[in-house]
């Protein structure tokens, strides 16, 4: 434990590490706070919170909400010649209530009937396709549609929840471009921390003394890996907790146990997880993407003699990958996005972009078997990261014939 503490200390007392961590957090807080302010400009979460609270405890129902909305629409309040915009039942004014009610009615309809009817029609269509592929003798499609029927033929106990805040919260921290930029910064920061952690002996010029000791190579490398994992997991947990605090306080999210399919955006999601489970899952995916980065950065660093070269290699490599991930998919239209949608299965860095894995039946043909893309990606993450760590372990501090 003491040696692990020393490895942690080596990284965490480094000034550049502290500055880069501070910058990472600064960006995180900046986009979180500005994002929350932007969200508050549309439907106010506290208004929705009251409506859903009344709906869930039976104080009101959609009929009464409808009537109230009609009153607003008929301009009843102006007819009665009130001087100012009247106060709303739920919000400060009736205009605050309008959009929140609209959204709530839509959400209740979706949860009570919309979802089920959509799934029934979906399964019917899938069944037709399934029987067609049986008749055509296409075994892969047969398995594909059968799997889809299996996945969508589930009766989730959906609950009305503020879908606007619920989705905006996830979008702010994981789906929109600001969060993508944050993921890139997190990835870059990970690369830097990894390179520094592995090169700290060379930076301090004590590598020869360390490597000539009995546990200066493999064991030191394993301790470094453990220290890096602790740092990455700790930082990821801190971000997770901060996001959760934002979710509870700014977005007023309460229905954490509701199935994720309660949000219309995720009605085709094939994972039977709750809202909280989904939130944990996408945070976990981001963590996996940075652990993958750690593995790649280790591999790029291992034979380097200084800090500069591996940093440059990592930054260029990751920069290119991130360009592919964010800029191309964001700006260059559908073709690139389609291409990316296929590539992401085999590219664990894509785990930092979780949305695509959960909004459709996201399966890939692997040796004639339909396999979930997220599952494949996680398996590949495990394989690639293990290979990277193994190669690095075997080469860390190794005396080579070509060293000099």
């Amino acid at each position, binding site marked *: 434990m003491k040696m692990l503490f*020393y490895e942690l200390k080596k990284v965490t007392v480094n000034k550049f590490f502290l500055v880069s961590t501070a910058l990472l957090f600064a960006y995180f807080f900046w986009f979180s706070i500005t994002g929350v302010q932007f969200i508050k400009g549309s439907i106010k979460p506290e208004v929705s919170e009251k409506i859903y609270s009344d709906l869930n405890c039976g104080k009101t129902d959609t009929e009464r909400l409808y009537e109230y909305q009609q009153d607003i629409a008929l301009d009843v309040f102006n007819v009665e010649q009130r001087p100012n915009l009247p106060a709303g039942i739920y919000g400060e004014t009736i205009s605050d209530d309008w959009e929140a009610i609209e959204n709530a009615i839509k959400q209740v309809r979706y949860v009570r009937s919309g979802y089920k009817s959509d799934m029934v029609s979906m399964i019917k269509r899938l069944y037709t396709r399934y029987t067609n592929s049986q008749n055509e003798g296409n075994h892969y499609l047969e398995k594909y549609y059968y799997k889809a029927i299996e996945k969508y033929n589930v009766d989730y106990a959906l609950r009305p929840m503020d879908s606007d805040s619920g989705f905006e919260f996830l979008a702010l921290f994981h789906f929109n471009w600001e969060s993508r930029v944050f993921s890139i910064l997190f990835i870059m920061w990970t690369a830097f921390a990894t390179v520094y952690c592995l090169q700290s002996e060379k930076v301090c*010029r*004590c590598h*020869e003394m360390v490597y*000539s000791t*009995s546990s*200066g190579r493999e064991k030191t490398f394993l301790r470094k890996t453990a220290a890096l994992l602790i740092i990455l997991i700790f930082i990821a947990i801190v971000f997770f907790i901060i996001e959760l605090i934002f979710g509870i306080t700014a977005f007023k999210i309460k229905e954490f146990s509701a199935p994720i399919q309660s949000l219309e955006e995720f009605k085709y999601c094939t994972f039977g997880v709750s809202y909280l489970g989904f939130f944990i899952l996408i945070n976990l995916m981001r963590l996996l993407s940075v652990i993958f980065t750690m593995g790649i950065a280790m591999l790029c660093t291992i034979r380097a003699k200084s800090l500069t070269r591996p940093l440059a290699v990592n930054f260029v490599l990751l920069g290119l990958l991130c360009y592919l991930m964010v800029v191309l998919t964001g700006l260059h239209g559908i073709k690139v996005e389609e291409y990316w949608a296929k590539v992401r299965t085999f590219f664990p860095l894509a785990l930092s972009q979780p949305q695509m894995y959960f909004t459709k039946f996201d399966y890939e043909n692997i040796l004639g078997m339909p396999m979930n893309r997220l599952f494949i990606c996680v398996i590949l993450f495990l394989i690639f990261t293990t290979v990277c760590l193994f190669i690095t372990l075997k080469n860390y501090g190794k*005396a080579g*014939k070509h*060293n000099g």
Partner: protein
Amino acid sequence: MDKLTLEIKGLTKKYKDTVALNNFSVTLHEGIYGLLGPNGAGKSTLMRCIADIIRPNTGEILYNGKNIYTEGKNFHKKLGFMPQEFGFYPGFTTTEIMSYFAGLKEISITSEEIEKRLKDVNLYDDRKKRTGGFSGGMKRRLGIAVTLLNNPEVLIFDEPTAGLDPEERIRFKNNLLKMSGTRIIILATHIISDLESLCNTIYFIKNGILVKTIDGFHTENHMQKSEIESEYLNIFGSNEDSLI
């Protein structure tokens, strides 16, 4: 007790077009051995090969009959190596450095023992100071303390006294003399006064080749500076830097 034996057999190390060591062979037992030669003669390369920091292109090194490269950790446990240039983690205190290297050398050491070791190198008063602010001499003294932590059987010092004040040099030399009876100690230097009254054997190295060996000096009959100097001048010619 069997004699300790370090056999260096036909060691050749090339860096691209430069031959740093050329078919170098010696056999060492307990005692102090000096490697003398100008800068770039191959002393550091030889030491780094023995410390398993670099591997030779050809040749082998046997410690008590076993190849050190296949022995790996077992040999490292018996080894103490202080390179020519080194530093420490600037955020660590002196005590932390000692404790960290004790962990690396897989030895358990008490804080009292660490304090004793620091007193030996006159760093006790600086035990809580961070090494980032250390002078060259202080770093070297800490390096000596770290190298000796595991009471190694094979001790390798590359330019150990550079930056040490005269008092520290004398203290260091006396410590080496005390330890030399049960250890193989190798000193590389181009400072002739380091080897004075200290070494049992001196190897003169030029362009990676062992050009001359002077041995047979015992504690009561050490080589004097003037003798070494004249040998040095015979082999390497005049070199002001080396005649300190």
